[in-house]
């Protein structure tokens, strides 16, 4: 497996180019040649898109917390709203956070990327650690300006019998990359990595995941769906590695996208690397247009074409938000999807 890129905005030599296999569809160097000047610290008022769901809040404003730190750590249960707020003009900032869920504890992380201003570069590095039997649900909402560059990379360490579930909701930016690498110990642990991208204009979103199954009887389920319009570009890279000895691994990966215009593009690379003998792994990948037959059927029953398109597209993408078990988080995700589609179609 390729070693992950350790991006440091202060050092242009760490910026990946398309010659780095994992970044071939998200050529950072093309958009960011030199290290940007450092953004000024930003005071952030409490709130954000998940404010109604309560819980503890940790907010970074241009990479800095209220205490002036560039790094934060949280250990506990309940609800954590982790906010990365950017408001800058052509400058860059980076932040780092670690979240630990103790054994048998349950945590909901509501992670939001809230961008304003223009042409900023943001780099976030995250670590998640789940103790034995812990349960972590992570909902990620990426809402940034169309000329921003935003990279977020997380390392997730899962213990036996723990459950890690994430859903990423991406609306893209000039270049928006959300990467998740999971160490999967098997032994009753389960991992779910879902994603949704809704892209218009010339926006670009890249959802990249790597799951490394290291022990027996691990379960991974993955469903990513997206829709791209105009000249937008969606990138899905999903790799599942099953190490030697990780027998009875059960891994399923699905990526399905709708392309609404000739100039829009979807690049998908689902990969299964299997070194164990007794495993059950499958992946499916489809990219296409909205089903014209279904569209005509709906119109023939009296539904105007625009409404029918919204209904069918929403139903297609809604499969991902429907999988979110937490009621409040699911409703927030569904509302986001409806808003985004209304703007797109």
């Amino acid at each position, binding site marked *: 497996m390729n070693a992950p890129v350790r991006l440091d905005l202060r050092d242009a030599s760490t910026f990946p180019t398309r010659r780095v296999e994992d970044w071939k569809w998200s050529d950072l160097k093309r958009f960011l040649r030199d290290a940007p000047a450092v953004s000024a610290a930003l005071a952030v008022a409490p709130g954000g898109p998940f404010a109604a769901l309560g819980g503890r809040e940790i907010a970074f404003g241009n990479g800095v917390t209220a205490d002036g730190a560039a790094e934060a750590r949280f250990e506990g249960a309940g609800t954590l709203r982790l906010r990365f707020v950017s408001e800058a003009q052509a400058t860059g900032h980076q932040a780092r956070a670690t979240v630990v869920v103790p054994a048998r504890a349950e945590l909901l992380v509501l992670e939001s990327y809230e961008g304003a201003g223009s042409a900023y570069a943001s780099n976030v590095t995250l670590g998640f650690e789940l103790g034995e039997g812990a349960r972590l649900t992570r909902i990620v909402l990426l809402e940034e300006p169309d000329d921003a560059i935003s990279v977020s990379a997380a390392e997730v360490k899962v213990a036996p019998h723990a459950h890690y579930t994430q859903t990423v909701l991406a609306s893209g930016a000039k270049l928006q990359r959300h990467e998740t690498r999971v160490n999967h110990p098997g032994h009753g642990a389960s991992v779910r990595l879902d994603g949704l991208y809704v892209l218009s204009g010339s926006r670009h979103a890249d959802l990249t995941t790597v799951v490394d199954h290291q022990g027996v009887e691990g379960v991974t389920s993955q469903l990513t769906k997206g829709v791209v319009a105009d000249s937008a570009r969606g990138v899905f890279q999903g790799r599942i590695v099953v190490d030697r000895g990780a027998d009875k691994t059960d891994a399923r990966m699905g990526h399905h996208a709708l392309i609404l215009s000739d100039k829009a593009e979807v690049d998908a690379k689902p990969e299964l690397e299997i070194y164990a003998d007794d495993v059950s792994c499958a992946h499916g990948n489809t990219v296409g247009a909205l089903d014209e037959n*279904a569209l*005509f*059927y709906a119109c*023939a*029953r009296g539904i*105007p074409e625009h409404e029918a398109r919204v209904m069918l597209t929403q139903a297609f993408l*809604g*499969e991902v938000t429907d999988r979110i078990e937490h009621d409040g988080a699911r409703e927030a995700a569904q509302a986001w999807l409806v808003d985004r589609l209304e703007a797109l179609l």
Partner: protein
Amino acid sequence: MLKIDNLQVSVADKPILKGLSLDVPAGEVHAVMGPNGAGKSTLGYTLAGRNGYEVTAGSAFLNGEDLLALEPNERAAKGLFLSFQYPLEIPGVPALTFVRTALNAQRKARGEGEVSAPEFLKLVKQKAKDLRIDFDMLKRPLNVGFSGGEKKRMEVLQMALLEPKLLILDETDSGLDIDALRIVSEGVNALRAPDRSMLVITHYQRLLDYIRPDKVHVLAAGRIVASGGPELALELERTGYDRYAAEAA
């Protein structure tokens, strides 16, 4: 009710309907029978307004409305209902949601108020019971994983709820066993009314044992080549379409 005059339709520049004329008065059930490739499905799709069915000449009026000038959803709001030979699966949209959306869209187009959710549920429950449709099935995505019979019963349920003026049944008997055929036919027959007409498109006479037509037309090579009473269907069953195909050619 329905007046079609000299209708000519091409699909991918190939003429399929070559001057079809048909008049279905209010309250009557007319059958259109014909061999494969005669243009039976083209007739249904053209009247419903499907893309790719290019009208090169002729006209079609429903209660004085020029159907061919309207979008598919507008035709539905004017009372046209095409029952599909192969009803489409609509993943992610529960059957109930789909039908209520369609009903309210039609009502809105006609300047009528929306049907409230409780009113709609009450209506659906009764109609579903008549058609022996399990109510829980209506909470599932429309037609996804339904059997052929279940899909056709869903079509009849939609007709019963949308209350169209003109029903076009395209090969409704295909894929149905005898029991399903009986339930579907009973559902259709229950919709017969003085202000509602039906066009039953079928290859086989079998369906007409259940849905009895007032008139039978033979469609061959894109035109109506013979018309008569119900006895014409029985004669076709005995003699086949060869005679008409030869005449039309």
